[in-house]
């Protein structure tokens, strides 16, 4: 149970070695969403780790320019999408097959899970990644964004530069493609 005496999440002094409480709060609230997007979009845990670091560092550097016209989540997603697409483009120019070494996939399982759960989650994670890898970048990105319940179709449309109606139509096809490939990856 939360102790009411602890007060709101934004604390008076910067917690845990962060330079400010806003930076700490921004990372605390959004790091999972940004890391997950990078992980599944790039398909490589190490590159996702680097990308997450770079995205948040960019955000911290631009924090004084952030006016709040969009939510912090969509602002971070915009930085992350641009960053990941640049990485992806650069990666495709140099490599053909992504590295899916088992050891690095361990990031996909929560560390407190039981061994069976870790195994199941790891297998599921690989299956999901294999499925996503077969989709186009556009479908993959749309599905990852729509899986975030904090985002509306309008916000997703703004992030990918399309109308919400276009997003709905493409998501319908993306879901069908995902389901078809997911069934084949058993």
């Amino acid at each position: 149970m939360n102790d009411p005496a602890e007060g709101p999440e934004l604390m008076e002094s910067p917690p845990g070695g962060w330079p400010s409480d806003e930076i700490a709060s921004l990372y605390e609230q959004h790091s999972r969403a940004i890391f997950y997007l990078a992980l599944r979009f790039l398909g490589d845990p190490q590159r996702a780790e680097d990308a997450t670091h770079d995205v948040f560092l960019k955000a911290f550097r631009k924090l004084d320019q952030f006016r709040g016209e969009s939510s912090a989540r969509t602002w971070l997603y915009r930085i992350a999408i641009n960053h990941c697409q640049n990485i992806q483009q650069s990666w495709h120019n140099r490599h053909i097959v992504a590295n899916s070494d088992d050891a690095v996939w361990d990031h996909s399982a929560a560390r407190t899970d039981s061994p069976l759960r870790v195994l199941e989650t790891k297998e599921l994670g690989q299956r999901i990644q294999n499925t996503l890898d077969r989709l186009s970048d556009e479908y993959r990105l749309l599905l990852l964004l729509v899986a975030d319940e904090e985002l509306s179709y309008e916000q997703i449309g703004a992030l990918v530069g399309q109308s919400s109606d276009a997003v709905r139509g493409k998501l319908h096809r993306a879901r069908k493609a995902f389901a078809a490939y997911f069934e084949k990856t058993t």
Partner: protein
Amino acid sequence: MSMKQQPKFSQQQQQRQDEQQAAGHTNRQQAETAREFASAEEVLRFDAASTTVPPEIAQRLKASAASLAPGQTKSWWRNLFGR
């Protein structure tokens, strides 16, 4: 007919039963996993919730952010809340 009257058959039956139970347990687990995910979004939400953010990222970020100018780490939030 009691099981004790045919111990050999019962042993085989028991073994088969154990195997079926084990197989059934596995199938149930798979079915439960499959039942959990009715859509692509559900699969991805579960996957996202199971994903741990490596603590190394925060450590690296703290080191990187330490070099930022103090004014850069304040946003409109601070003005809004008067902090």
